[in-house]
């Protein structure tokens, strides 16, 4: 089934046992995003280091499809405890992959399990699912930084 390009094992695994799910306190910034096509939602919280350069803690809570749930879980694994610089690189790489229609060599160092999401790029209707958590995280970071 061609579909297994999109729903790779590792995605289904993250979907069934999401890592890092559940909102945590304290946090410096929070963002709530809705996917307009389906109404699904995510809230992301970020606690930055005092110099604002590291993500000390990222947490989230969300409802949505397997792709959006897995994407949030993978993002958590990839960026929790990393520098903002790393976050931005990963986030840019992920966005580029999603807009590539599948024509892309994803960098595993930047994406971790996220490379498994390349199949999603071939289903335009689902790209927003994969991006939802990343976009919310970006917003949460901006807000956390605004508080500094």
């Amino acid at each position, binding site marked *: 089934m061609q579909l297994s390009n999109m729903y790779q094992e590792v995605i289904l695994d993250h979907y069934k046992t999401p890592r890092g799910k559940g909102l945590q306190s304290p946090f410096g910034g929070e963002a709530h995003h809705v996917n307009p096509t389906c*109404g*699904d939602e995510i809230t992301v919280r970020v606690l930055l280091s005092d110099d604002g350069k590291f993500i000390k803690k990222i947490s989230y809570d969300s409802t949505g499809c397997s792709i959006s749930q897995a994407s949030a879980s993978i993002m958590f694994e990839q960026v929790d405890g990393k520098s903002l610089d790393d976050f931005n690189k990963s986030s840019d790489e992920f966005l580029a992959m999603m807009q590539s229609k599948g024509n892309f060599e994803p960098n595993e160092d930047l994406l971790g399990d996220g490379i498994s999401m390349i199949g999603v790029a071939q289903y335009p209707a689902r790209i927003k699912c994969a991006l939802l958590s990343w976009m919310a995280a970006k917003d949460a970071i901006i807000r956390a930084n605004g508080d500094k």
Partner: protein
Amino acid sequence: MTNTDSKIKLDIKKIQLDFPILSREVRNHRKLIYLDSAATSQKPQVVIDAQNNFYETINSGVHRGAYYLAELATDAHEHARETIAAFVNIKPEQLVFTKNATESLNLLSYSFLNATMKTKFGSVVDKRLILNPGDEILVSELEHHANLVPWQELCLKTGAVLKWIPITDQGLLDYSKIESLISPKTKIVSISHMSNVLGSITDLELVGKAAKSVGAFFFIDACQSVPHMPVDFSKLGADAIAWSGHKMLGPLGIGLLAATDELLEIMPPFISGGSMIETVSMQKSTFTKAPKKFEAGTPPAAEAVGLGAAVEYLQKIGMQNVHNHERHLTKLMVDGLKNIEGVTIYGPTDDQDRGSTVSFALNGLHPHDVGQVLDDMGIAVRVGNHCARPIMDKLKVQSTTRASTYIYNDDSDIQALLEGIDEVFRFFGTK
């Protein structure tokens, strides 16, 4: 022309051959199993041909030209009107062509805004169309957005107040609440004939009586009923009904409004411009009678002619036969879904009279994932809120999976859906 509508068994395999799209392959060289007719129906070759024939042989300015082609085009346009009007048992003058049901419902709602504002500045309009702050409009909680948002908008512009018949947790209209909701303040009652989410059919007689008992206008969103069962306007007790051509084998771009002569007479124009005027000077214009009063601009004539062909096609099959066939499919579907562990059906599940639109959930799975896996098997179902957000809120879900049928679906399509659902569970390892 009309089939005798006995309990004959339709030759669905033969009907399928009339629909070119059904022979195409979809993902993975799968046969297309189209179960989204509640959104839009497929088109038989006769409808496509009727449109082509219009463009290839008579295309010209309908109602505007005096030459040969214009005569033919005008005739074809008005012949289509006669055919479609007869289909719901009204006179041709009672049938207004719009672009879709949404425009038809907006036409109704704007009549009240326009009448209300025109009196303010001295025009004479029928008093029944004037809304004052505090006047009430009654809809239900299971309306499609097309029969909800226009009324909300009207309230925002007139100070009228929107009330709604609530739905039960099962998503059915709670008729017991009507009495307390309706009063002499109620000026408009607008309700859908059949839910596009649950397939449930409204007790129009009950609602219509309540509306008439307080002198309110009674409007019906017939989008999901006219395509699927015999509908006789004169028996509905309504002032107007709205529906779309594209859901009944017709082309996109054409909607319908059927109304009483009296309502058509008193409603001021909605969209204004050419072809709907009697006289125009820079100072003042006067308008023609319905239906042209509501058909400003160059009409979608090829689409009307295509829809006329669609109606003739349906009449040959017979609407009672269409309905019987769909009830048969619905029973197969509902019974089949009930037999799959982990499936929740929303809406009526017993053998009551209902449409073939069935919403359901696969427990633990998101509708978009369900839809995606079904799509991979060539099965087209709809996932989402189906433009009926308030029902979702009541069901406490973001979205549902919905399968809906038409005359080109057969038992094997339902079988494919049921097997597909098993496959979805297997795919996600939730079973």
